[in-house]
């Protein structure tokens, strides 16, 4: 490739004809494929590395400034308090050059949307002009689900389109069948609400009023959607105008070239970082999700194969994923790409420039027709399912590669599952509302090889996330928090334990008409431990109808305020008389709940690391004293014996008794275990007999047909005939 991108090709009569965007995109992609380069040389970087860095910092500051301004404009708690927003700058072809901080999942998803418009002839059929705004929440085009809403504007310099600016927020109401956009009952994409595929919703820097009305009448509460659009428009305008100033300072040719060099530089840095940091080899991990629709119960797995080569190539293969179906626990390819790169940026490439150079340097296989790359746009992709698991599995594989190379400060177990509640209806002031609560942005962090996971302080999908003030949420969702507490014993047990997530107990207030639900996981362990650590606890929902709360208040009794110290039933269930419903897992389709009902949900917790019997006893003691772990787990899981004072209160660790108990636990393990060969022979008999519980049998039947690679390995592992099917 030439140093400055070629802008013209010979015309039929010998005159020069400008390339269309579609031609330019095709040429760029062909060039990368043929040469392996985005830009053949880094002459600007090499000739003046200081300017190279200064200019990138200027781009980054511009985008980050736009994000901060937009945060102030948005009226949505998920944007304003949780920081669910990001801005990006793109080349003419739609490749990301630089991104603000924020929702890193969308490093690449807005790029997908820009390329989709180019490939679908928007340049001629719809037209691009300065001041145009294109809105997209079609997740097959870009984004993750209809909640992920992007606003993209072209960047014109001297009358020519020279790039794109985009902003994306997560909007908590889309007019879906269930309120709050992320319902677990959807069997069709058309249940997900209002979807607008790259629609020009503004021109001349003004948004169309008729489309505002469309949104206002199409969703339960349009505040977040419409206010976020204004926030994104403002942010985009800030970036666009600052970019014009920057180009005026450095010249257009310099700007074009240096932007391409930023992407090329990241591609090279990506390969170099892989070569230096990750031990070469083949890594395999699996993460779990499932379908909980009645009659369709099935496990879903995310089998990840990571190959690191000696020359710094990183290849990810997800052959073995289940097939896409009419269920919401799956994802589009743009979202799966976004999740993976969100994880890789946080775990490996955190010190590089965040742009598409990383994406272009990595090889990824996600089979078409799988639950992470559906080939039918009528299918719902609401809750991502194996895509989130695919990121968890990839992060564990990368951790093993770091471990082998000696970089133990980068090693960690799986991060927490995303879960939360949804609600909609009429609030106590007679206003329509609909939303999901994003407090799960403060879940329990994974354990690392050197420390416990932080409690209520982490999410994989937004490293800057925060739970937000309950009082602000109560303005958007009129549920009243009776409890918001650390979920004791939630994090996976281990030498280092996973962080505990949040437990919240909501009261449905008087004067409301509310339906409430939640999303999360099937009744499984969805966040694995690493190298001997246990997975995080399973999620669950408790719903209490027809409670005696009024009676309790009239009698002057305390209202329930948490799970308490009991190891079996939570305190709030024991204390409140109600028609209690317990739902394992946390996929609870929204249902009407009368005032004074109680609804209890938990966020995800982090996976544990290493053998729990190697946990330092004094840390077990500390957790018990702090109320983060129970005395039961201290004894049963960690085999730590405490000493007690005269009042029978714990006052220390009995080191000798602990050592003896741990030795006994190790002997007990070997006494109850069997050699792997014997174990395999027993399980093989069960497979032949079809003695497999329904959720697993459904998975095996599907994947044995859908993935030849996985089927061959499954049959070889269990020494089954080539035509074996689950009876």
């Amino acid at each position, binding site marked *: 490739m030439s140093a400055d991108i070629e802008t013209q090709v010979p015309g039929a009569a010998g005159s020069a004809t400008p390339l269309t965007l579609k031609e330019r995109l095709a040429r760029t992609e062909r060039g990368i494929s043929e040469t392996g380069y985005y830009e053949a040389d880094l002459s600007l970087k090499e000739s003046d590395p200081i300017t190279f860095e200064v200019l990138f910092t200027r781009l980054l500051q511009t985008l980050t400034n736009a994000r901060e301004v937009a945060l102030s404009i948005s009226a949505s708690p998920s944007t304003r308090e949780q920081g669910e927003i990001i801005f990006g700058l793109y080349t003419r072809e739609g490749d990301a050059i630089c991104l603000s901080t924020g929702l890193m999942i969308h490093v690449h998803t807005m790029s997908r949307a820009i390329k989709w418009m180019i490939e679908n002839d928007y340049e001629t059929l719809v037209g691009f002009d300065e001041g145009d705004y294109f809105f997209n929440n079609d997740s097959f085009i870009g984004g993750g689900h209809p909640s992920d809403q992007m606003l993209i504007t072209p960047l014109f310099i001297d009358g020519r389109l020279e790039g794109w600016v985009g902003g994306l927020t997560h909007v908590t109401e889309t007019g879906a069948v269930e309120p709050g956009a992320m319902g677990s009952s959807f069997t069709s994409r058309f249940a997900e609400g209002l979807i607008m595929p790259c629609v020009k919703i503004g021109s001349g820097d003004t948004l169309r009023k008729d489309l505002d009305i469309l949104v206002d009448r199409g969703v339960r509460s349009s505040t977040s959607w419409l206010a976020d659009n204004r926030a994104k428009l403002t942010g985009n305008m800030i970036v666009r105008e600052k970019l014009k100033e920057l180009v005026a300072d450095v010249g257009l040719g310099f700007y074009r070239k240096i932007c391409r060099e930023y992407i090329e530089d990241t591609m090279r840095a990506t390969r170099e970082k892989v070569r230096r940091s990750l031990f070469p080899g083949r890594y395999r991990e699996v993460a779990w999700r499932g379908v909980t629709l009645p009659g369709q119960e099935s496990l879903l797995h995310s089998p990840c194969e990571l190959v690191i080569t000696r020359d710094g190539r990183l290849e990810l293969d997800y052959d073995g994923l289940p097939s896409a179906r009419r269920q919401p626990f799956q994802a589009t390819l743009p979202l799966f790409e976004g999740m993976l790169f969100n994880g890789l940026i946080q775990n490996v490439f955190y010190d590089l420039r965040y742009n598409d150079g990383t994406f272009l340097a990595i090889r990824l296989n996600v089979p078409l027709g799988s639950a992470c790359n559906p080939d039918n746009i009528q299918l719902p992709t609401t809750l991502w399912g194996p895509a989130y698991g695919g990121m968890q599995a990839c992060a564990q594989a990368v951790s093993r590669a770091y471990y082998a190379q000696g970089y133990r400060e980068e090693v960690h177990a799986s991060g927490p599952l995303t879960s939360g509640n949804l609600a909609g209806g009429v609030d106590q002031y007679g206003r329509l509302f609909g939303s999901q609560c994003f407090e799960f942005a403060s879940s329990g962090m994974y354990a690392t090889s050197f420390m416990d996971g932080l409690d209520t302080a982490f999410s994989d999908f937004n490293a800057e996330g925060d739970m937000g003030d309950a009082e602000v949420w109560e303005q958007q969702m009129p549920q009243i928090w009776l409890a918001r507490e650390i979920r004791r014993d939630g994090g996976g*047990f281990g030498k280092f334990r996973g962080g505990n997530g949040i437990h919240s107990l909501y009261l449905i207030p008087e004067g409301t008409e509310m339906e409430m639900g939640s999303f999360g996981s099937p009744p499984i*362990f969805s966040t694995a431990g690493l190298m001997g650590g246990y997975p995080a606890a399973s999620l669950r929902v408790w719903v209490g109808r027809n409670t005696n709360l009024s009676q309790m208040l009239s009698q002057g009794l305390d209202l329930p305020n948490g799970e308490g110290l009991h190891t079996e039933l939570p305190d709030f269930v024991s204390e409140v008389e109600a028609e209690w419903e317990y739902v394992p897992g946390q996929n609870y389709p929204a249902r009407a709940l009368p005032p004074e009902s109680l609804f209890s949900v938990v966020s995800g917790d982090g996976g544990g690391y290493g053998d729990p019997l190697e946990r330092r006893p004094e840390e077990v003691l500390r957790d018990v004293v702090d109320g983060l772990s129970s005395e039961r787990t201290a004894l049963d899981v960690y085999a730590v014996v405490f000493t007690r004072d005269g009042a029978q209160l714990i006052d220390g660790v009995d080191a000798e008794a602990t050592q003896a108990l741990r030795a006994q636990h190790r002997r007990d*393990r070997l006494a109850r275990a069997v050699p792997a060969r014997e174990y395999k022979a027993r*399980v093989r008999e069960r497979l032949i007999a079809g003695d497999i*519980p329904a959720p697993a049998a459904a998975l*095996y039947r599907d994947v044995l047909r859908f993935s030849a690679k996985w089927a061959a390995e499954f049959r070889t592992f269990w020494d089954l005939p080539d035509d074996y099917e689950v009876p």
Partner: protein
Amino acid sequence: MTSYSSQMISDLLEGTLPLDEVARLQRDKDLDRFTTVLKLEQARVPWEDRILVPLQESLYVVERSDGARVVKCRCGQEFGDYRQNWKEEAAVCERHPQDGVVYLKYKGADPAWQMLREFYCPGCGVQLDVEPVPVGYPFVFNFLPDLDE
């Protein structure tokens, strides 16, 4: 070139390095880390076989005096050729996901969906891996290192 003391890396391996020091390691990488860690790991095990690569907590790929490359626990228990999954030579136990010992009823998976498959070293009983999987799921072969020059 950035380099850190052997003591600092040793503290990292022991999980006792202060977090501000860990942050230094995360910000600025030492390129000789593999060699440093290999020496430290070799000094921590009670046997003489040469460690080729630490495979995971407690397990190493070693080269024996007869030239065989095998997976070996820090206790000395061997798990066979490194190109085969070490889990094939482990002690295995399926744990009920709500057994009341590790997880109680309201925090464990539904047994129809998953159990906890635990892998122990037959020599010392250390827990090497926990797979939350359904019945019939093949052992996951976590790591096949590329050792061939």
